[in-house]
């Protein structure tokens, strides 16, 4: 497995995921395209139901029954995961592709000791290890994510672990073979606020040590600003904007991104009313013909283009002076007919 593949580590191209509905297939994810590069943290942001989790489950080939990839490619180091046979996929899963799930309370088998579950992950891709070596590896994995008394803890059951500790165990499990790509699906959402930051630090540290790239799914924009290099914003099964973190936060081009940023509680909203984007996202089966965001958009009301033509992800002009930080791999892009127009008003707290 070459780790020096010249192109992007992961390239998702026009990925469409469908589920059978009463009136034919329903597109849950509709033509999603993005790239993740070696060693970067790529955040996937959006509301519940926007298709973030399905997108990464498709990468892992772990879509729930009945949900399938209808079209598109998922190139991982140049190999299309969407067309890989299960036996090949199994060799990647847990080794080059690893995932940390949202709810650590249910992600571990309640009837097996934690150590045994980690050992399973260790041994699957390292067949030569004997019992002693496997146990040592498990203990060092647990120690690396800050679990105190790894030997004792490995011999206990998940219900004897707190939520934060369980998520550390899940991270240890995912890092068992230093995966090229680590996927973290809302890794701290189910945890107590007090331990969220700790677990996020553990995750970031583990990723750095292994040199993995990471896809971080979250709806916490604060977390994105802290942890991510680049961001894709998803809305109703589509990517509506992608940019590096700095650009996304300072000059969002899509009105949805601008709305999300404006709804962050901060000094500006203290004592006043928080901003909320009016309305709710459409169900996947009732997505409008044009722009899916149009019914909720302050730019789109009354404009024919928005109701009839679906906007495609288009590269945005990059200001030449924007040179702090590493050079972005792919230019910023947004899927809006009127990208950039008057979004800044929102940020100043003046919803149009």
């Amino acid at each position, binding site marked *: 497995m070459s780790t020096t593949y010249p192109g992007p580590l992961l390239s998702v191209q026009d990925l469409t995921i469908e589920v059978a509905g009463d009136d034919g297939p329903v597109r849950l994810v509709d033509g999603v395209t993005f790239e993740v590069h070696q060693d970067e943290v790529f955040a996937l942001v959006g509301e519940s139901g926007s298709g973030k989790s399905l997108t990464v489950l498709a990468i*892992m*080939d*772990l*879509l*729930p*029954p*009945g949900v*399938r*990839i209808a079209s598109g490619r998922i190139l991982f180091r140049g190999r299309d995961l969407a067309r890989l046979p*299960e036996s090949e996929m*199994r*060799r*990647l*899963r*847990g*080794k080059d592709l*690893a*995932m940390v*799930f949202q*709810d650590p309370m*249910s*992600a*571990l*088998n*309640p*009837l*097996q000791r934690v150590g045994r*579950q980690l050992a*399973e*992950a260790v041994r*699957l*891709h390292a067949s030569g290890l004997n019992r002693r070596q496997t146990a040592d590896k498990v203990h060092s994995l647990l120690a690396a994510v800050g679990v105190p*008394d790894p030997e*004792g803890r490995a*011999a*206990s*059951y998940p*219900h*004897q*672990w*707190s*939520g934060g*500790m369980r998520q550390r165990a*899940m991270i240890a*499990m*995912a890092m*068992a073979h230093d995966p090229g790509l680590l996927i973290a699906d809302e890794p701290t959402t189910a945890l107590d606020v007090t331990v969220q930051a700790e677990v996020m630090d553990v995750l970031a540290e583990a990723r750095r040590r292994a040199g993995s790239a990471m896809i971080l799914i979250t709806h916490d924009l604060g977390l994105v600003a802290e942890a991510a290099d680049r961001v894709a914003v998803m809305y109703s099964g589509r990517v509506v904007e992608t940019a590096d973190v700095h650009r996304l936060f300072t000059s969002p081009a899509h009105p949805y991104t601008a709305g999300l940023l404006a709804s962050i509680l901060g000094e500006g909203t203290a004592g006043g009313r928080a901003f909320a984007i009016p309305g709710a996202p459409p169900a996947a089966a009732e997505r409008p013909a044009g722009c899916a965001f149009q019914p909720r958009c302050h730019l789109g009301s009354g404009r024919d283009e928005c109701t009839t033509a679906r906007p495609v992800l288009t590269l945005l002009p990059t200001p030449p002076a924007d040179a702090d930080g590493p050079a972005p791999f792919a230019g910023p892009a947004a899927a809006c007919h009127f990208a950039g127009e008057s979004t800044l008003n929102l940020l100043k707290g003046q919803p149009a």
Partner: protein
Amino acid sequence: MFNLDDVPVNSAESPKTALTLSSEPLLQGQSNNNFLRGGTVPQYLIKRTGQAVFTLFCVLTFAFILGRATGKPAGLLLPDNATAAEVDALNGALGFNEPLHVQYLTYLGNVLRGDFGNSYRQRESALALIAERLPATFELAFWSFLLGLLLAVLAATAIQLTGSRTLRSLFIWGGSLRHSVPDFFFALLAVLLFSVALGMLPSLGRTSPASLVLPVLTIATGQFVLYVRLIDAALSDQASQDYVRTAFSKGQSRARVLFSHMLPNSVLPVLTMAGLNLGSLLGGTVVVEAVFAWPGLGQVLTEAVSQRDFPIVQAGLLVVALIFVTVNLAVDLLAAKIDPRVSLA
């Protein structure tokens, strides 16, 4: 792409055990909550033994009341031409002319001393007569239970591994068809085919290991569909659990996930039901024993009831109740052994 289960999960409620799940997550606790080290087992056993004694007392009392409610036994024991005076004399000799509460207390006193009296007909110890039937009943119950469960596990495993709805329908439809045929009728058909037409297997009695085949087949196939439904529902429920997805995300194969995660975790919901079933099989299978002249508990009990042979009925019911209580206790202990979250209380 794997479709472990493309059929909606059967929403069969998993039967609840009498045990409680400890809902409180231990934070950072170093305690190893394995119940065997918790020192709670002796207390639990004492409590359960107390409950068992009470249950057995109730069974004894009911056996007494129901028996007395059907009348005195001498009329059935003596020949048809016996005089009323003879009948009354025998009833008196057996103690049936005493006031009811005296009879009851005498009976309880005797039982506490381990004396169930002698059978009215065979003039032997009732308990000994029951005990000599136990091996036959246990043999039949054990093999039927094992075969029914084994077939069901194989079928449910095949359904999950192939993800085939056709296979599921086939097993459940076939099993339901068998289940809907009364055992005695199925047994007669089996005898007609294997004993009369093919002459392969004995049809009556308990003379050789081959005598076991037809009765075991009758009971096992009858119970098959119950277990298939139960295990299939439990496995389908496990298939949608997050921890199964975690196992797949490690790169584990479908078969290994099924055998090392889903099947062991499906034992709990199946265990209670299987325990109840085993208990009732061990208590004797009246119909099947009657058809195959199998010399088991069920046979001796039905005979004793129809002949008002009260000592046998009372001893038999107590033994059956004891078996039931023991199996249920074993099931609960086993559940606690399997599930570390279960605390015995």
